[in-house]
């Protein structure tokens, strides 16, 4: 039923609206409209005093809906929904009309047109609210448990903090060892701490926490349910080691079958091993058995068979959690064969490979049995491609390279480093590393994407030719022992697996997409599913940990109370009109629609807990049987009609009485003004004094006093004795 007792509040916003829009005239015009019980222009709609007045109006006049025409709905929707709740009407019987950002400010050059537009906007809001329905938030119970997918540094750190906040954490790692890329990076900027040490510290902390359960070899299989109550199905791959085997014997056998490789770059190469670890100190400190290789090597199996259990099966676990945090990280860009000579010459390697090399050597830098005395780093490989797929910058690679170069000088004497770069982006404190590298004698040569360096590997040593833009594009050629390609970060190859299970949108850069980079940086469109770390875009370790911790904090805020309220803005099916063609279910990316039998026919049914209210299903329905709550045909179409409403709006005339004085004389200014005016009668006071005497916070007094000053109600009256604050007095 249409609402018939509507209250309309039109805000002056100090003067932000009323300086351009004739709100007083609009208020009077709207008062005469059908169904409008109250129409007021108020100085600050959001002020406490006005909120109290609104509650009084709603209760005394038995209003059934309210419209507030003021600023953007992004700012005060919750304020006025709360007013509605406190007044005893449904919070969804309120409509916010934006007459500031999208009217008075946007059209401050044409006040009369702004007033005409504001009338249309308010009429649209009135029409919309007249069709508004009382909706109830969906209350959902939440499990105080979190699944964190990915046990890299970001995931482990988030697990620790989430557990400390009182949640049970299931930390799921697809690999058999924790830490992701970090243990393989050697020393890390800016502290110089070793990646392995960082991972070991985090792992040891996790081991001591009873409310963190770590699963390695854990594949996310399926996630059902919704925020507060997800069921996460995980498949755990076996290590094929007997549960009763002596750990010391396992390590002895592991050493027997897997002597350390002389080539540090090959350590992770598990292809040729019966038992393997991703690096010698990898954690958990239990190797993994390649069961096929074990079974094909009968002699080895027979010799040590008491430590193996080849009959172990995949285990399927079901975990109940309230929320999920995804910290699956990234892949390093893998250059294509021939890209700067990669894979065509063994003297061309990537930065992650080079870091392993630097980490593994102690006194002299040896590669393939030969000493290395010069290294050329080529930057931005696989990133910042104007015409390629990876248009973005990976943020951390400039600093990682320069930090590695400094290590070269500190660890191995006499190694020369050439940096063939496009731009150096050692932002923040990392700039100091760039300065240090320059002081150590590193040579920087700048190229542009259109003229990349040429790596010629046909000779004994790689020959690099580059047009140096720092010396008027002079072509410079030099030999080097090793070429290091500074490869950036790319989205994980298996990203779509997790994305399809959790319904996380993927951006054009192929990383996971948050809702808003600034305002909702770790939230996804799936309520209860958060993303953190480098799975959402290139980040260094500090930034990854920051975003994962932010996700952990958001999750705690969500699940700690035990219940959460979801907005009821979801799709609804008109059962009479629906003929179940299935198109709505086809386009729904959240599996929120399924077919059910109703009165002898098949119709669509919406799961309110999983529906996101995006409305994608509505236009594809040929029988127009789908509507989204708050965005119904009646609401939208009546808004369109409202925009086109005409009224007899007259140009505002300026009276002989001062414009400012008239404004100040308005009856609707906040009660705080009355208090200030009474207090200042016959005396001058500073803001802290007024604040103390009236019992309001000083920022509230400052805000109102500045507006009163603007409208010449008060004026400054000199500085106090300490010259710290201005006195204010009433303006006569």
């Amino acid at each position: 039923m249409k609402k018939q007792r509507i209250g309309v509040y039109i805000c002056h916003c100090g003067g932000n609206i009323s300086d351009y829009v004739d709100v007083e005239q609009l208020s009077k015009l709207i008062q005469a409209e059908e169904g409008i019980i109250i129409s007021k222009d108020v100085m600050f709609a959001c002020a406490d005093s006005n909120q109290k007045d609104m509650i009084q109006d709603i209760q005394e006049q038995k209003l059934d809906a309210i419209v507030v025409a003021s600023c953007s709905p992004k700012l005060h929707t919750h304020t006025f929904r709360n007013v509605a709740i406190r007044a005893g009407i449904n919070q969804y019987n309120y409509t916010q009309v934006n007459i500031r950002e999208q009217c008075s400010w946007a059209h401050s050059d044409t006040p009369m047109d702004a007033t005409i537009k504001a009338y249309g906007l308010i009429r649209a809001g009135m029409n919309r609210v007249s069709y508004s329905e009382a909706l109830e938030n969906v209350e959902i119970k939440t499990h105080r448990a979190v699944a964190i997918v990915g046990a890299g540094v970001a995931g482990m750190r988030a697990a620790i903090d989430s557990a400390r906040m009182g949640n049970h954490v299931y930390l799921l790692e697809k690999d058999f060892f924790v830490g992701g890329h970090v243990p393989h990076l050697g020393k890390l900027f800016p502290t110089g701490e070793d990646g392995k040490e960082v991972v070991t510290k985090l792992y040891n902390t996790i081991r001591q926490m009873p409310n963190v359960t770590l699963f390695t070899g854990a594949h996310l299989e399926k996630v059902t349910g919704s925020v507060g109550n997800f069921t996460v199905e995980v498949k755990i791959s076996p290590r094929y080691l007997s549960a009763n085997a002596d750990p010391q014997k396992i390590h002895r056998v592991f050493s027997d079958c897997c002597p350390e490789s002389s080539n540090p770059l090959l350590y992770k190469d598990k292809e040729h091993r019966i038992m393997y670890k991703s690096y010698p100190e990898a954690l958990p400190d239990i190797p993994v058995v390649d069961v096929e290789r074990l079974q094909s090597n009968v002699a080895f199996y027979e010799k040590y068979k008491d430590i193996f259990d080849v009959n172990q099966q995949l285990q399927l676990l079901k975990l109940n959690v309230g929320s999920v945090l995804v910290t699956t990280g990234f892949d390093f860009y893998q250059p294509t064969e021939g890209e700067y000579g990669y894979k065509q010459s063994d003297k061309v390697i990537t930065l992650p490979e080079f870091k392993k090399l630097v980490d593994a050597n102690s006194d002299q830098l040896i590669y393939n049995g030969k000493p290395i005395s010069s290294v050329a780093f080529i930057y931005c490989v696989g990133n910042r491609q104007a015409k390629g797929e990876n248009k973005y910058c990976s943020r951390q690679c400039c600093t990682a390279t320069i930090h590695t170069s400094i290590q070269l000088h500190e660890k191995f004497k006499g190694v020369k480093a050439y940096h063939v770069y496009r731009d150096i982006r050692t932002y923040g404190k990392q700039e100091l590393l760039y300065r240090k590298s320059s002081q150590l004698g590193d040579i920087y040569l700048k190229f542009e994407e259109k003229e990349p360096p040429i790596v010629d590997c046909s000779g004994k040593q790689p020959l690099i030719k580059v047009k140096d833009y720092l010396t008027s594009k002079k072509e410079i050629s030099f030999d080097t022992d090793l070429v290091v390609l500074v490869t950036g970060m790319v989205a994980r190859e298996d990203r779509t697996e997790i994305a399809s299970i959790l319904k996380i949108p993927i951006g054009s850069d192929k990383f996971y997409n948050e809702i808003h980079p600034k305002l909702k940086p770790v939230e996804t469109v799936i309520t209860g599913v958060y993303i953190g770390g480098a799975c959402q875009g290139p980040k260094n370790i500090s930034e990854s940990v920051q975003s994962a911790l932010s996700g952990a904090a958001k999750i705690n805020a969500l699940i700690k109370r035990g219940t959460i309220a979801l907005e009821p803005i979801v799709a609804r099916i008109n059962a009479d009109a629906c003929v179940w063609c299935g198109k709505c279910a086809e386009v729904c990316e959240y599996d929120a629609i399924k077919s059910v039998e109703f009165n002898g026919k098949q119709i669509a049914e919406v799961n309110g807990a999983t529906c996101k209210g995006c409305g994608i299903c509505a236009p594809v329905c040929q029988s127009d049987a789908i509507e989204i709550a708050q965005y119904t045909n009646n609401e939208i179409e009546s808004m369109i009609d409202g925009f086109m409403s005409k009224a007899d709006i007259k140009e505002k005339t300026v009276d002989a009485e001062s414009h400012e004085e008239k404004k100040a004389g308005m009856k609707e200014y906040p009660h705080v003004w009355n208090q200030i005016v009474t207090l200042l009668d016959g005396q001058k006071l500073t803001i802290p004094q007024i604040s103390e005497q009236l019992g309001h916070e000083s920022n509230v007094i400052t805000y109102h006093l500045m507006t009163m000053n603007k409208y010449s109600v008060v004026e400054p009256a000199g500085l106090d004795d300490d010259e710290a604050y201005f006195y204010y007095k009433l303006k006569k």
Partner: protein
Amino acid sequence: MSTEKFSPKILVFSTDKISDPGIDQAGLRKIHYSPSVYVISLPCSSGIKPRWIMRALQKGFDGVFIAADGHECSYSSKCAEHTNTIIVESQKLMKENNINPKRIRMAALCSVCAEPFVSHMGNFSKILSELGGIDTEVYSQK
């Protein structure tokens, strides 16, 4: 009605999380655009019904502009594709009703795209001014 004075009425469908904040920002920075532009914000541009577009044109809006999220849409990676289908469907209805399909336009707008929004409004106003008021088409069929 002379062309100079004609200020086409444009209905913009924006999105709550991305393009509407971009439009707000134009106001915040007082970058002016035509006061004949009215905005309805929705969760996602893929949820616009062609009947709403037709309603706007039949009620006197000279053009409809869809400020979509493009690749930034947090609901669907196929948002641009879905929105485009809605435009195609709407244009079919427009043709059936003798309305020039140029009266609908779409562009992706980000949450800080204040200048691009104002520029789109300027360009679309020019196109609509050349086409003339909607009444010349809607009413001519009657």
